[in-house]
């Protein structure tokens, strides 16, 4: 087996050094009833060629997003990732290293995390950010629980514009921790409704912008209302590129900002691995979950970086930890940081402007299709449209024309009664021809 270096002669010699007659002697502590003499019912080992054949065969059964006109978003976005990013993240020293618990030989990873934290703080307009979370949805759940620790209150109000899967994840995880989660009904322009639900028991108000229907909202008033009630405002963003064009959460009064960072540096990967961004006001830092990298000096006084404030984490605080999480999303955070370093302020602003322009083009083209109604009044790169005959059926029908039309809202929340709502997204990868093909196919189906 190509990954196993020991030869039969090595094994015999090593057993002799140990003083064991056979390998079975080393498994003597396993109860006899559970020792299996025979192999399990699975295929035997396979060469690289055979493995490639099987996996390439499975991959060929899928239609990649890049195979033709493609308009799915709803929390994961198809963007172009520079070749440099994927090259660097495959370097052995980044790919095959562990969490940087020995800072003297992990400065590469640590300095990247420090750069990542600074970039995320800048994007979100907040003072501090952690070294990443699993993804946007788990970051959202963690933010709600952090608000509970800060305010010592139990209730969180989730806006109806929050991605339903984020809401479900938050409900599952925060509820398990004993919180009361008030989930408002899904609605296109849902943000104003949260104002009525804020009361003296509210720990956090969770609002997404652009929301799941693509609506961009200025949340300043919601921040004011939350703060007046002693609650925190958590602003969620599922499309990190939007930070390049829109007012930041911090600028609008957010106390905590969380986001899905997949759009920058990371592929679609059928839903994971992604990278959760998490930033907050400096005064809240000791209640922040997740790993943190901080600057310090070494014994010779040279600047270096270490994981810090780790008493908040599970391996030291055990049952008193702020969170049970012990992994971040290191390699995805690295990809994010490299891509954002390549973009810079200039590139990110251009990229965001381009995404917005593509979505305007898409909006104009679809609005011109008879029977289609654009529902999203102001959007970044994604919008909701109403289609006759149901969104799920429209998507299935347009597949025959080679167009992947978007995400039916009913797939995210079947009980919302919004079966005719289709979420469509455009990015810099969307061509004018793609948009025309979509509009024509849709016109053909609705005619």
């Amino acid at each position, binding site marked *: 087996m190509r990954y196993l270096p020991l030869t039969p002669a090595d094994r015999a010699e090593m057993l002799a050094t140990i003083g064991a007659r056979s390998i079975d002697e080393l498994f003597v502590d396993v109860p006899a009833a559970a020792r299996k003499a025979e192999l399990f019912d699975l295929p035997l080992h396979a060469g690289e060629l055979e493995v490639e054949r099987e996996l390439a065969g499975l991959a060929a059964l899928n239609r990649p997003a890049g195979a033709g006109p493609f308009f799915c978003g709803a929390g994961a976005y198809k963007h172009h990732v520079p070749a440099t990013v994927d090259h660097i993240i495959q370097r052995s020293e980044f790919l095959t290293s562990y969490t940087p618990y020995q800072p003297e030989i992990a400065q*590469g990873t640590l300095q990247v995390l420090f750069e990542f934290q600074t970039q995320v703080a800048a994007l979100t307009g907040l003072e501090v950010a952690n070294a990443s979370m699993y993804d946007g949805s788990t970051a959202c759940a963690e933010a709600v629980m952090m608000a509970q620790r800060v305010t010592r209150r139990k209730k969180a109000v989730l806006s109806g514009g929050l991605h339903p899967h984020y809401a479900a994840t938050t409900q599952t995880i925060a*509820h398990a921790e004993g919180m009361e989660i008030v989930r408002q009904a899904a609605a296109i322009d849902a943000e104003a409704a949260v104002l009525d639900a804020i009361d003296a028991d509210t720990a956090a108000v969770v609002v997404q912008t652009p929301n799941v229907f693509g609506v961009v909202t200025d949340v300043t008033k919601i921040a004011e209302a939350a703060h007046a009630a002693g609650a925190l405002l958590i602003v969620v963003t599922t499309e990190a590129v939007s930070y390049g064009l829109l007012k930041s959460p911090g600028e609008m009064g957010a106390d905590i900002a969380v986001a899905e960072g997949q759009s920058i540096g990371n592929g679609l990967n059928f839903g994971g691995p992604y990278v959760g961004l998490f930033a907050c006001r400096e005064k809240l830092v000791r209640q922040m979950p997740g790993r943190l990298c901080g600057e*310090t000096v070494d014994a010779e006084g040279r600047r270096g970086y270490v994981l810090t404030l780790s008493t908040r984490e599970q391996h030291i605080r055990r049952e008193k930890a702020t969170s049970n999480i012990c992994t971040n999303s290191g390699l995805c955070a690295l990809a994010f940081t490299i891509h954002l370093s390549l973009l*810079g302020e200039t590139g990110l602003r251009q990229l965001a402007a381009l995404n917005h322009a593509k979505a305007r083009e898409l909006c104009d083209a679809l609005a011109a299709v008879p029977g289609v109604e654009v529902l999203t009044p102001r959007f970044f790169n994604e919008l909701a449209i109403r289609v006759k005959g149901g969104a799920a059926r429209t998507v299935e029908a347009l597949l025959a024309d080679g167009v992947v039309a978007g995400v039916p809202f009913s797939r995210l929340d079947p009980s919302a009664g919004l079966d005719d709502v289709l979420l469509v997204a455009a990015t810099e990868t969307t061509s004018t021809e793609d948009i025309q093909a979509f509009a024509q196919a849709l016109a053909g189906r609705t005619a």
Partner: protein
Amino acid sequence: MTMLNVGRPTRPDGAAESAGHTSLTGGRGLLQDEPLIFELGGWSKTGVDLAAPSQDASDLGDLVRSAPIGLPGLSEPEAMRHYVRLSQKNHAIDLALYPLGSCTMKHNPRLNEKMARLAGFADLHPLAPQSTVQGALALMDRLAHWLKTLTGMPAVALSPKAGAHGELCGLLCIKAAHEANGQGHRRTVLVPTSAHGTNPATAAFVGYSVVEIAQTQDGRVDIADLAAKLSPDVAAIMVTNPNTCGLFERDVIEIARLTHEAGAYFYCDGANFNAIVGRVRQGDLGVDAMHINLHKTFSTPHGGGGPGAGPVVLSAALAAHAPAPWVVSGPDGLRLVEETVDEAAQGFGRMSAFHGQMGMFVRAYAYMVSHGADGLRQVAEDAVLNANYVKARLSPVMSPAFPEGPCMHEALFDDAWLEGTGVTTLDFAKAMIDEGFHPMTMYFPLVVHGAMLIEPTETEPKQELDRFCEALIALAHAAKAGDADRFKGAPYLAPMRRLDETLAARKPKLTWRRGDNGVAPAPLAAE
């Protein structure tokens, strides 16, 4: 003859006196001091060329950001050089043995990377129409089949994103099952003193109170103490097996029997599954739920701290409570069940937005298929053999915490052998860095004083194990011979010397700020 006696010298005469030499500019030869991106001055630079937008953002009015973000940019060559320089300051499994106990740092096959990058997997949207992702669903289904077969368990939840997330998933399944059975009043989880910190953290997170179970002299769960603490209030026990001392819980079947008799469930922390994969099935031991760290046993890269993946296998008693989503087979092929509304009212909810760490599923599956049933069994055998070999070679100079009997895939030493040398476990570990090895896991498990937990894994050749053992033996002799300076100041030869963690924690500096490190505030605004 002709004599050509000009040109460069070809012997290193006189170059031997190098002790204490420093460079004039702060770097160490090829190891350059590398500034932060914020100090490289590229406030107007970009390393991407983008098309001009066809329309403006006037429709968004004052929703548009006016203030600068504060992000530096790098051209492509600068970015490449910056990150490659940084990479060279890291240790990695591709450089040398990485003996972190409990972390299973094994070789990461590049075939797995190649497979995960096939467009048919990497460029798939999680919400693309299901008819267009049948191959991805088939891969999830096959991965599930392998995980179920290898553990002897009937169900698996794939969506948890790491080990701790898997623990949370497992405990939520247990909580849901108790509630469904009218046992929702159970409030206690029993955890051995040697457990990973995540176990009590997870139990507390879900609202359980944690009670510790004592450990016996030979490093196993104290059955008598367990039996005494198993009350009608106990919801579950969380036991790592093989445990964190690197030992197999001999009485595991009795532990399961007692637990079930008390109406509780048996959660197994699967962090150490590598020791028994292909040889022992947790289902045969009475386990109800176990997370499997794909980044340990099935070799998806650790990536400097994630991403991981932590699928949870479940017994028949818990299977109905698994979270969404999961894959089912139907008349139109495979289908992903994403809502628990109609199809499984008992499911406890959702662990994350999408379907789990698909990129890790592809890698883990490629790894499994490469090994096959025979190769995986060999993985466990070689992992255990390597650990026992290290234990045998080091025991004459270091003190094994549990000298009697074999260990499993990791060898545990205490610091009794360092007594009187003035050298601590930490000092010893830092001196290993100077010898070119990553330190072992230190001061864990907490039940062993000054613990040193060495996990070599099965992908180390005997030559590398010998090189490692000889380095440790030489260090042990140096410590005992009174060469304390070698340890107290270590590492001397790493990219950095020991770092001041106290300073970092007392005055936390978590982001770069304008004006730091003497860098003048850069012009921003609309350049």
